[in-house]
């Protein structure tokens, strides 16, 4: 099973990279672009056929390593 994992900064956490990109978009003429947030996308193959087990494992991966839940949130799809 493949997990497709998105890790993003929580709302309210300053994202200096997002701000810099927003300014760049603005200077390119995209004045209607706003609130740019930069995140991470990861794919992980999980050698597990039981969907519930795979789900529990990916959740643990996110909690323990892939996201720092003080500042980040995560979501994933299993397929």
């Amino acid at each position: 099973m493949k997990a497709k994992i998105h890790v993003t900064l929580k709302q309210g956490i300053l994202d200096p990279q997002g701000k810099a990109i927003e300014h760049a978009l603005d200077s390119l003429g995209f004045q209607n672009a706003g609130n740019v947030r930069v995140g991470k996308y990861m794919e992980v193959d999980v050698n597990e056929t039981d969907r519930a087990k795979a789900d529990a494992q990916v959740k643990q991966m996110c909690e323990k390593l892939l996201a720092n839940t003080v500042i980040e949130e995560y979501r994933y799809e299993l397929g």
Partner: protein
Amino acid sequence: MNIGVVVFPGSNCDHDCEYIFKDVLGQSVKMIWHKDTLPAGLDAVVLPGGFSYGDYLRTGAIARFSPVMGGVKEFAREGRLVIGICNGFQILLEAGLLPGVMLRNTSLNFICKDVYVKVENAATRFTNRCESGQVLKIPIAHADGNYYTDPVTLAGVKANAQVIFRYCTADGKVTAEANPNGSLDNIAGIMNADGNVLGMMPHPERSAETVLGNEDGRLIFLSMLSAFGKSEQQSRLVGV
């Protein structure tokens, strides 16, 4: 004093720390590869600066799972001294030995320059040779030094006098202009509640001997020695 300096793949201030403790202060130092276990008989452990694991994922996020870190956590739980400098501080945060996280500097720049920090608490095992409120000039060199934690944790850390260093002006004023990286409350260094684990972004090992033109950082290491009732030995470098 027996000091252990942990070496992660990507550490680059490990030998600077060894040099200060061994050659400048005359103490015994062991270098500990991150895959080894912590040797017995250490008085303090140093997590040095650098770019452990290339800062992949998040700074310090992968180093915290190095085999040696189990021993470092145990060492800290026993109340013994652990100091994390720059990347070492980031590792201590990721390992949960100190509260909070590091965000990217608000400027997005890697900043390498001398800064001033104010000693907010001089009654610690890392700052007992400083005066309360003393201003130290120590260099920083980081891209991710923007300290952040949630408001509840921050209130606890402040109430408990765990904020040890804050970025300030040369005359000790803690202002927004003196904050190089956007750190919450100008925080440059914090300690755990038990007072035996310190993390700081500035590099005291880069400002700890006369020949470097700045000895302010030496006070941190001398404080650690004092906490063990030791003083610096005749430096091997005297007269060189």
